[in-house]
């Protein structure tokens, strides 16, 4: 070995430390054992009830310990999971479901139809898809221990797809005594019927969570396909660590202290790829849209021309550069796959169109009103585009002001409908899974019913009238056609603006394989194994 200065330093330090650290201690830094997987998850799990909250990390927890009636396969088609068989009556109003054999709770008692009924009701209080079912349902009841029915007032062609929907809160089946609580009250136990058991003794809330393989779990016979098919657990234990600092998480992955790093920053990709032991893998291939929400109740954006100005101003490639320089790409549809389309996208221009934007602002009668952009400094992927947006607006003479805070403060402020002078807001940026945007009944971002819509409160009666038809459109062709009509209107009244679409690959050690792809930011833990 050639003696470089760095090696000399290394040797010197080695000589010093070798004396002071007994070899027993050094053994502690060896990689974790082959049947335990350690995963650095993107957010801390602080709430355990996946119905009470819609956060991804709690849905991940739900996927581990609970099971679902239906699951999506790799083609995003709904397949039975806890359900053995189901049928629908001739008038397409009565659905009958029969549970498969061998389902049991972690406490040993069997899963019954009554548990499913209670779970559907609780989920139906909060999930928008669930609310739709509850509104249409005449009766949800058990027939016997294994069978239950949903009787509808009028047909609902998308019922099964709604039951299998992956946009949190997902329909996780809980015990009747847990599911009989109101949805606004947290379930305090962690007893499910899923492939993993929650190990409370080894869990430190907010810091780490431990799951053990559920030895009693009986998987379906079918091979694993997406989230559908047999859920076969190939490790004994999974430990989630919540490592707040990106550098630390990467270092831990490189050193083999963890096997999986859920959300590495885009700028770490080159470092990850240069390490022969590590690999990037895209689990959610449909990606996430970046959505720019505009407060359409207050000046200047209560004028549709001003909203159109933003639409024309945005240079999606520039925004993707600061968010995901590798995988980011323009996105001109308000919808996700498979209903994504190019209707009414004449506004799109590579590089943006500042001149047109300036002109539209002028036509809107813009007179230097303050434009307040909410900037979440604790979420880099949203902080960067917020800063860029402010700079871009200033260049065309808009009086843009950043309001930096943490995300929590934004959740308060974005709910305020008042003018910016009274602590209101003009614009904030958020993201939503492409998959969720493929369901106009599921994603709140696709509402345009004014005061009842999501933050920004876009209003278009014409659009809403079309959206109301969604529940009764049954073929994919009809849905695509309806989606085109809706999008045509959306890009005219500008309900929100898209900045592009990015991918969020996970980083893992090459020894960890068998991860399942999902169209949202969720990580199922069955099927994965460690070499």
């Amino acid at each position, binding site marked *: 070995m050639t003696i470089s200065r760095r090696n000399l330093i290394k040797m010197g330090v080695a000589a010093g430390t070798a004396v002071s650290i007994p070899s*027993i201690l050094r053994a502690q830094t060896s990689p974790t054992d082959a049947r335990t997987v350690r995963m650095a998850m993107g957010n801390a799990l602080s709430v355990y009830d996946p119905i009470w909250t*819609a*956060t991804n990390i709690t849905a991940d927890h739900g996927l581990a310990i609970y099971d679902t009636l239906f699951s999506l396969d790799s083609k995003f088609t709904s397949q039975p999971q806890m359900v053995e068989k189901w049928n629908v009556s001739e008038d397409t109003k009565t659905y009958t479901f029969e549970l498969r054999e061998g389902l049991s709770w972690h406490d040993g008692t069997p899963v019954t139809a009554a548990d499913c009924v209670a779970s559907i009701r609780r989920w139906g209080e909060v999930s*928008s898809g669930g609310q739709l079912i509850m509104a249409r349902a005449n009766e949800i009841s058990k027939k016997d221990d294994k069978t239950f029915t949903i009787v509808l007032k009028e047909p609902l062609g998308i019922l099964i797809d709604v039951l299998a929907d992956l946009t949190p809160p997902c329909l996780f089946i809980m015990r009747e005594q847990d599911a009989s609580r109101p949805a606004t009250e947290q379930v305090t136990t962690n007893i499910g019927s899923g492939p993993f058991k929650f190990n409370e003794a080894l869990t430190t809330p907010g810091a780490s969570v431990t799951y053990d393989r559920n030895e009693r779990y009986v998987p379906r016979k079918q091979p694993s396909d997406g989230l559908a098919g047999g859920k076969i657990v190939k490790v004994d234990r999974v430990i989630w660590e919540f490592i707040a600092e990106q550098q*630390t998480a990467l270092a831990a992955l490189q050193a083999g*202290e963890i096997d999986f790093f859920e959300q590495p920053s885009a700028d770490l990709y080159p470092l990850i790829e240069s390490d022969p032991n590590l690999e990037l893998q895209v689990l959610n291939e449909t990606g996430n849209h970046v959505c720019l929400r505009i407060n359409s109740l207050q000046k200047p954006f209560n004028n549709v021309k001003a909203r159109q100005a933003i639409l024309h101003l945005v240079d999606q490639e520039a925004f993707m550069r600061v968010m995901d320089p590798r995988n980011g790409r323009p996105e001109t549809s308000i919808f996700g796959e498979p209903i994504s389309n190019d209707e009414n996208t004449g506004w799109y221009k590579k590089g943006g169109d500042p001149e047109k934007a300036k002109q539209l602002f002028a036509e809107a009668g813009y007179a230097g009103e303050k434009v307040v952009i909410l900037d979440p400094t604790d979420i880099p992927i949203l902080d960067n585009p917020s800063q860029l947006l402010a700079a871009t607006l200033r260049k065309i003479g808009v009086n843009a002001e950043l309001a930096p805070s943490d995300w929590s403060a934004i959740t308060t402020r974005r709910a305020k409908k008042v003018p910016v002078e009274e602590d209101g807001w003009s614009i904030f940026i958020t993201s939503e899974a492409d998959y969720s945007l493929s369901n106009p009944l599921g994603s709140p*971002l696709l509402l345009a019913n004014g005061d009842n819509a999501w933050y920004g409160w876009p209003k278009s009666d014409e659009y809403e009238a079309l959206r109301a038809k969604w529940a009764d459109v049954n073929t994919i062709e009809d849905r695509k056609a309806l989606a085109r009509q809706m999008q045509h209107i959306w890009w005219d009244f500008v309900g929100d603006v898209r900045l592009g679409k990015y991918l969020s690959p996970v980083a893992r050690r090459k020894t960890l394989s068998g991860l399942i792809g999902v169209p949202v930011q969720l990580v199922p833990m069955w099927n994965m194994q460690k070499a």
Partner: protein
Amino acid sequence: MAAYILRRFVSTIAVMAMVGIFVFLLLRLAPGDPAAMIAGKSATAEMIAGIREKMGLNDPMPVQFIRWVRDMLGGDFGTSIFAGRPVLQLISQRLEPTISLSILTMIVSVTIGVSFGILAAWRAGGLVDRILTAFATLGFSVPVFVVGFFLIYLFAITAHWLPVQGYKPIDHGFGPWLVHLILPTVTLSIPYIAFIARITRASMLEVLSEDYMRTAAAKGASSYSMLFHHALKNAGVPILTVIGLSFAGLIGGVVITETVFNIPGVGRLVVDAINNRDYPIIQGVLILVSGLYVLINLAVDLSYTLVDPRIRY
């Protein structure tokens, strides 16, 4: 003396009450909504409103305050809005790493810092003094997290001697416990070593320049006796003050160090709680930390009388 201690205890309660009101108001006035954080990024306004109502966050502030104080007097620090568990239980789960790190850091910093300070004062202006002063200045000039990442790179990623991150409880064995704490302790100690060394040196020099020290020297006292019997004792008050005061700063350093080394301690707990606006946890931690701090400084004040007999209470 006894009367003094009693009086200090009474005033400690007053201090805690002040901290309590301050913390409570600070949090309630801050924007940010725990209900919205619970509900998730794409939650609807109704979902958030429902959670708020259920959690009692819509009650008038005085009602919330009285409820909080009453419960706390009964030993109930409330329940985490997020985790749904008692705050005391959450804090106690996180105490061990933080206490381990703090105590190790204090031991290392005081031992090395005071020694360096004495050494530097003894050879004031000499080479040793200059090297130590340079170290103290440098150690004080680099942000804690930069030192942390540098040490991780050197000792964990490049050399593989020490783990990058994490914490092992002491009942899993002393070895793993210590190994996981070496880098964090060194990282956190550097500024404190520098700090304590500087103060020790400054105080020692001040005492050494007193007339009675010259007298002692003239009488032929040895340098050992000069340094330890005369100077250190007289320089003790400022040194002790600084060590007592370091404790609050230490908790601040702990917050950053715990983040860098992913140690599941009280620091991480409270920073996460602030981000989530989990009021009961923030209140509980701040009250406990300030209580501990007040007690430590009471002990420091009392120890003045041991070091400097001229001070009497």
